């Protein structure tokens, strides 16, 4: 962990200002984290951002909830989804925005596809093992590559060249980014998550999502995110090169059958997300 932190300090100077977290998201998150907040209060905050309002209503009205009745207010949407899921949806909005900030449409789409698919896989894995909050797993998996969003925003051309290299020269994202920029999305993700004041548990998943084998702690979110990332690769929702065994299975006590079940549950949900956004 220290090496990532040390490297990260050098990176700040090279990459420029990190994107701030929008005030509406920050305030809404604070309210959602406090069980004594009223739904009305949260609605007031969310309504300040029209695009966010539309995003939440779209999710609430999607096949994910399968409701016959139209959800037309934020209060109804929050009551329907609960505070935890609402937090997940806010995070999805946050990352979607960062991934759409600049650059080529195709690359934006690929980043989003990988991010949301990992999130759904992460959630399904957590639901399967019961020991971890599934929305926490959703959020961590959603954000594991967030450093790529910063690269897209601040170093658009370099990042797009690195994507081209992954495809043309059969490299991993880590190798192509390092060869072009001298640092990778992992250090940037760590920095951003720190800046945005995400929990230590989530920051760890960002740091170790490419090298779980080096992790020795007990935070179960780490193997969950690492596995979710790999499942997204295996199911073709990603553009990185991936190889290696699914070493997380042992720690999570998963069989091949468990894996198949998770895929079966996750894929329709992923497709619904991709359909609506």
């Amino acid at each position, binding site marked *: 962990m220290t090496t990532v932190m040390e490297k990260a300090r050098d990176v700040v100077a090279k990459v420029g200002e990190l994107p701030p977290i929008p005030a509406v998201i920050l305030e809404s998150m604070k309210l959602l984290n406090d069980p004594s907040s009223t739904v009305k209060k949260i609605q007031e905050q969310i309504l300040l951002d029209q695009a966010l309002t539309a995003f939440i209503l779209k999710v609430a009205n999607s096949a994910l909830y399968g409701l016959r009745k139209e959800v037309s207010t934020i209060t109804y949407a929050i009551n329907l989804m609960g505070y935890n899921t609402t937090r997940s949806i806010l995070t999805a909005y946050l990352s979607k925005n960062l991934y759409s900030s600049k650059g080529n449409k195709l690359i934006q789409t690929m980043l989003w596809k990988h991010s949301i698919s990992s999130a759904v896989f992460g959630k399904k894995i957590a639901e399967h093992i019961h020991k971890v909050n599934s929305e926490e797993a959703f959020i961590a998996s959603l954000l594991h590559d967030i450093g790529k969003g910063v690269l897209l925003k601040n170093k658009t051309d370099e990042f797009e060249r690195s994507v*081209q290299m992954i495809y043309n020269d059969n490299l991993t994202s880590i190798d192509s980014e390092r060869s072009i920029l001298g640092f990778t999305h992992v250090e940037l993700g760590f920095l951003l998550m720190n800046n945005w004041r995400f929990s230590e548990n989530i920051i760890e998943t960002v740091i170790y999502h490419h090298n779980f084998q080096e992790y020795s702690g007990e935070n179960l979110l780490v193997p969950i995110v690492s596995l979710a990332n790999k499942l997204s690769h295996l199911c073709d929702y990603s*553009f990185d090169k991936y190889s290696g065994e699914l070493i997380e299975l042992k720690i999570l006590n998963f069989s091949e059958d468990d894996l198949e079940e998770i895929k079966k549950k996750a894929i329709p949900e992923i497709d*619904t997300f991709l*359909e609506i956004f």
Partner: protein
Amino acid sequence: MTDTDTTNKQLSLAEFKDLQDYIYQKSGMFFPVSRKNYIEQKVIKRIATLKYESFKDYMNILRNELIRTEIINLFNEITVNETFFFRDLPQLEVLEKHIFPEAVASKKSTINILSAGCSSGEEAYTIAIILREKFPQLNFNITGIDISDMVVAKAIRAEYSDYAVRFVPKPYMKKYFSTVTNNVFKFLDQYKTNVRFQKYNLMEFDNIHPGTPFDVIFCRYVLIYFDKDSKQKVITSFYDKMAPNGYLILGNSESLFSVTSDFKMLHFPSAIIYNRRK
């Protein structure tokens, strides 16, 4: 609601899977469960048009080919794609600034272009306009193919709404179109000579269409309907029918990652296109 009331009817999951499977077998297009509502609407429309009573009857017609053209009508219904002239300008710019000048520089006499999944012809005619306007020294052949005979007929008729032509620059509008009615415009016959359209199922493209290799293949917003296996099959047939170092242009959100490495990705300021490796 009675059985004969098809207007509000929903397909059961089993019925949907049945249909999903059938469409996939026949066309290679895979519609996930998340698109059930979409497919449902289209099928219910077909059932209502045919005045049949249930989905079961309808599947019977499809499977046993009781009405031989019904499968085509169904494809027409589900693949209707909204498209327009001069769509995705950054990609067209790559054509204009990179691909066509390269053809001119290499003293190519004729450039062969395929518009795969051509819909009602907007893309093919757009390319024809660009070539005529900017590269008069280059001869060209443009072939448009689509699975739906309805849109192919429409492409040949070449009549467009004001919506479809909204991005055509004014001088081109004046030169290339005649006004049929207030908001219907016809692409003029004299400019259609080297643009032709045919009905083809892309899945069967590899064994149907021999001939001069294509220098450029456009296949935009078509592969989104295909699963990985079918995508690979279609892309392989493109590769086989393409000139060495030919160009493949996909929709803005479609990529060849995990599909094939037979192509090289070329990254332009706001467009990504693919180049046949040899």
